[in-house]
């Protein structure tokens, strides 16, 4: 079963702006899916249509095989949405906001109270439950929005830039939390401008640009298209100059950090061998962030230049 199925979805705003030009998209149940695109590409419009905040011009949207036009109520029961901007009454108390959201879904008072407590504890906002929401920091408000979206235990959770403007600590704790609920079976669709976030969390990806899907594939498949890849090596001992026999494009960022770019087809074994022969000891190694960014820019640029992909 597909968690989300969109076919030929079009949205034309008054004034003639075509925000969506007939997109098709499928997200499997249990997936962690990234929907990426530049500003104004149509991401938020797509989410708006799914969540009934935007009226579609034509097309079909199904949530867990339930058509949102035919059985609006049942489809919505399966859905949780974290919007891009704070969309709760900031004069209300945090606990009330989350419990009321459960009430709108028809949960009993007991269920609403229990679910709200569970997610507030999970998201570390339990001790803020009696505070007025407007007194919370931006990061805390984000957590409230996530708790609110989850309080009805949705099978499909859509997050529209959930970590925009939040600090690294919160971003990482949110990543861990989302990974946990995804592992428990919740399908997650994420839009974000932080491409390393998508790369780290998501298994599948679609890129939307100018109202069209320009790429829809697995994250792994997309990353294999990279012509070259940069790795960051943390060195055990400080290094002042690069060894002469290093036949790679390498940059010594600082005495203990070496960045090496490896072309497609080149193995990693040789680089280890070369570094080892030069007496350089490596304490750790990781991908440089920005791999997805390169692909993303390439795809969006080629779409702008006439659709060559």
């Amino acid at each position, binding site marked *: 079963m597909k968690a989300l199925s969109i076919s030929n979805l079009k949205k034309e705003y008054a004034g003639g702006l075509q925000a969506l030009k007939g997109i098709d998209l499928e997200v499997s149940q249990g997936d962690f899916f990234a929907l990426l695109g530049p500003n104004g590409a149509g991401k938020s419009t797509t989410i708006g249509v799914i969540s009934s905040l*935007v009226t579609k011009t034509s097309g079909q949207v199904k949530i867990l095989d339930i058509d949102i036009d035919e059985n*609006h109520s*049942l489809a919505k029961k399966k859905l949780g*949405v974290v*919007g891009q901007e704070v969309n709760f009454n900031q004069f209300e108390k945090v606990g009330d906001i989350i419990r*009321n959201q459960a*009430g*709108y*879904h*028809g949960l009993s008072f007991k269920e609403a109270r229990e679910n709200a407590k569970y997610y507030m504890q999970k998201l570390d906002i339990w001790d803020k439950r009696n505070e007025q929401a407007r007194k919370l920091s931006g990061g805390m408000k984000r957590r409230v929005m996530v708790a609110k979206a989850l309080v009805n235990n949705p099978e499909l959770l859509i997050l529209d830039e959930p970590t925009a403007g939040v600090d690294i600590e919160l971003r990482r704790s949110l990543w861990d939390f989302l990974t946990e609920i995804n592992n428990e079976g919740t399908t997650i669709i994420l839009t974000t401008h932080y491409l390393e976030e998508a790369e780290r969390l998501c298994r599948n990806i679609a890129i939307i640009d100018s109202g069209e899907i320009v790429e829809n594939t697995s994250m792994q498949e997309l990353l294999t298209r990279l012509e070259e890849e940069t790795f960051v090596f943390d060195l055990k001992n400080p290094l002042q100059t690069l060894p002469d026999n290093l036949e790679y494009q390498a940059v010594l960022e600082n005495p203990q950090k070496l960045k090496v770019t490896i072309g497609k087809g080149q193995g990693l074994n040789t680089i280890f061998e070369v570094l080892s022969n030069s007496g350089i000891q490596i304490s750790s190694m990781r991908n440089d962030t920005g791999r997805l960014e390169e692909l993303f820019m390439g795809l969006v640029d080629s779409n702008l230049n006439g659709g060559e992909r």
Partner: protein
Amino acid sequence: MTPLEQYRALLTILYKEIHRFMRIWTQTLIPPAIMIMLYFVIFGTLIGKRIGQMGGFDYMQFMIPGLIMMSVISNSYSNVVSSFFGQKFARSIEELLITPLPHYLILLGWVLGGVARGLLVGAIVTIVSLWFYDLSVNNWTLSIFVVISTSILFSLGGFLNALFAESFDDISIIPTFIMQPLIYLGGVFYSIQLLPSFWQTVSLANPILYMINAFRYSILGASDLEALGFSINYAIFMIIGFIVLFASICLWFLHKGRGIRT
């Protein structure tokens, strides 16, 4: 949603609405009480004694049903228009739109919130009026029916205004330029029998006149309506008709997403 889930969701909206106006009680409940007290002191005690009888009653006795209705009408309306537009403005209306809630339940929740505030303010004004005049009720059933149905009608009006409003200025235009004149010219302070024949006929086009007079009849047992040849049933029919019309319009615009969806 099952009927039980709908009931729970409705209670949630109603709880939230009542909680909202109770939280700001100094802005929602106290001003009407002070305003009515001033009306009683100025128009009832000071000027009223010089006026003498109005429509066959002491002036203060004549004025009380009109003042109660005026409070119910304006508070029902303002509760819904400010609350719903506030939610639109803060985008917290999205909280409801993304849930399985059917449109009629959203409308019903807000209308019941408006009725709750209208009735509470009506009760406060009634209590205040009892300090100034020993009032007795001629027909309890009719008075409760008229006050609730009028409150429903103006809550619907407030909802419609909120759907169309795009700024805070827009939510004060109708109360200031349409409702307030209609209320004041609807016989709150005077009997329309005092007017020349032409203006009596013009006044009959004011729907609020029928509501105020139906309520006055339920309290005092007499009103301008019978004197002008209209039965109370006509007023009731008119209120119910407007409720059905306004509710249908609200549901139609909700369905179309007017003011709440792009």
